[in-house]
């Protein structure tokens, strides 16, 4: 995500109002930088035109890696590197290898996906987030509009926001 310098910040009190406002704002040809909310708003992706997250695919790929890595390692260790007769069974007897394979699949799928999530969402302990309005983690729904990205005049955007139910419209400048 690229960051501009000057933003117009619409503050809303209700998730349903902000959803309607997103619709009008986008119909007026205004580009929205991002919406910030204290909780997940269902259906907001459709209003903003966001595609569904591909994290499940990442998780699946990590899972497949885990499954094959575990299975190949076990078969190599007990079947080829140091074969031993255990309970009179074959060196490579698949059923008892499945539990560890399953656990390792879950291990990689879960951790791989969470790490990917941290990377794509830029979550890290030393992150310095650009906060548009501190109340967005409490009880306000925030719409940030990058003035540099939009050709439409500031006053006009301001009017659209106020007309569609924003309780406040503020300006926010980052250095």
């Amino acid at each position, binding site marked *: 995500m690229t960051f501009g310098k000057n933003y117009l910040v619409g503050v809303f009190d209700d998730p*349903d109002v902000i959803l309607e406002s997103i619709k009008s704002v986008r119909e007026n040809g205004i580009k929205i930088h991002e919406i910030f909310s204290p909780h997940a708003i269902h259906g907001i992706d459709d209003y903003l035109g966001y595609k569904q997250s591909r994290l499940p695919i990442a998780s699946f790929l990590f899972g497949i890696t885990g499954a094959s890595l575990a299975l190949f390692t076990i078969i190599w260790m007990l079947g080829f590197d140091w074969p031993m007769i255990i*309970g009179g069974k074959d060196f490579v007897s698949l059923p008892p290898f499945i539990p560890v394979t399953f656990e390792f699949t879950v291990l990689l799928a879960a951790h791989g996906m969470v790490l990917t999530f941290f990377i794509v969402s830029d979550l890290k302990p030393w992150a310095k987030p650009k906060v548009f309005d501190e109340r967005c983690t409490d009880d306000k729904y925030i719409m940030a509009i990058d003035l540099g990205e939009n050709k439409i005049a500031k006053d006009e955007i301001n009017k659209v926001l106020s007309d569609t139910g924003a309780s406040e419209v503020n300006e926010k400048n980052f250095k």
Partner: protein
Amino acid sequence: MQVSSPIREPLIHGGKTLHDVSEDICRQVEAKPSTAWKIGFVISLAALSIGAISVWVLLWDGIGVWGLNKTVGWAWDITNFVWWVGIGHAGTLISAVLLLFRQKWRMSINRAAEAMTIFAVICALMFPAFHMGRLWLGFYWALPLPNTFGSLWVNFNSPLLWDVFAISTYFTVSLVFWYVGLIPDFATIRDRAKNKISKAVYGGLAMGWIGGAKDWSRYESVSLILAGLATPLVLSVHTIVSMDFATSIIPGWHTTIFPPYFVAGAIFSGFAMVLTLMLVTRKLFKLEDYITIGHIELMNIVIIVTGSIVGIAYITEFFIAWYSGVPGEQYAFINRATGPYWWAYATMMTANVISPQLFWVKKIRTSIVSTFIISIIVNIGMWFERFVIVVTSIHRDFLPSSWAMFYPTIHDVGVYLFSFGFFFTCYLLFSKYFPVINIAEIKGILKSDGEKK
């Protein structure tokens, strides 16, 4: 702000606004610790320190300080291990299985239940680790690391090794699941923080979360997939724990009913522990509007269901032992119920099979006092279940000349006390410094809660 339905009781009482939710749940994080909390913390720390003496003796002298003998080679250690793992399962069940079933009532209790899972799994891990005797060599014995034993690898055919992988995967996956859920709430605390230190600490923990729509969308898919992964994981963990016994040839252990029976027992004891903890937490932190009688009743219903499954499993086990026609198997069960450990068997039967049936009475399952008492009885009963399975099956083994009894020593008790001290110290620290209820999820259901979509 809150919309109420004429038909359905709202999940959250008190007509809360979004801001009220932040206030109510962050209050105890921001305030000075209360006297009740301090007393509880001192008691837990005392238990931890007294128990630490036993742990020290155990590590210095070896597991000979326990009451084990050549017949009863597994006793309190494995009992405690299975008991703690079982307790942990309720947290995953609440956060993962109920998420997949879209049960919104889980949101008031999932945070604390997941914390309980994590601490309980650490307590569980202690026991097999201590039982290895030389803890510091554990990595070489339990993990497939390159070594100088001729590159002899660990035995992947053994359920004990499956346990290593199952429990460690379960622990780390539960930990990230819990942490991902905590991130938005840490951000809430960070933005409310008045002093520099808490702003820096919670800011670091929140990892720069500001609640953008794109991040929320990813957060939701991560939660859903983690829930989907954690559900088969939690079932596999206790299945594998039960296979520690079921794949042996000891009469009383060698039964195919063990996996489902252990999983049901785990959920049963876990819900009992969640209730014990939540009833205290709710009272201490004044969260009655969030954890309502409705929540308690639903948890009690889960206890009736799983308690009844456990009861049927006990009876089935007995029937199959008789029906198998194997004298050794039959003797193991008769000895279990009428032998020298009859009192443990009777405690288990009363506490696990009879006491949860009291919840059929609405007055009992909606009463806080009776729920609290029964939840503790169930926990005691489930400890005895594991003790009965472990000790009564092996104390009279194949040669009558080697029959023996198990008598715990002070160090058996001490190490168990250590795990309790650890559990409650961690839980109290969590409940003071972390939000005990998922703030963001509660805010998400305030409006739609009870309202027709």
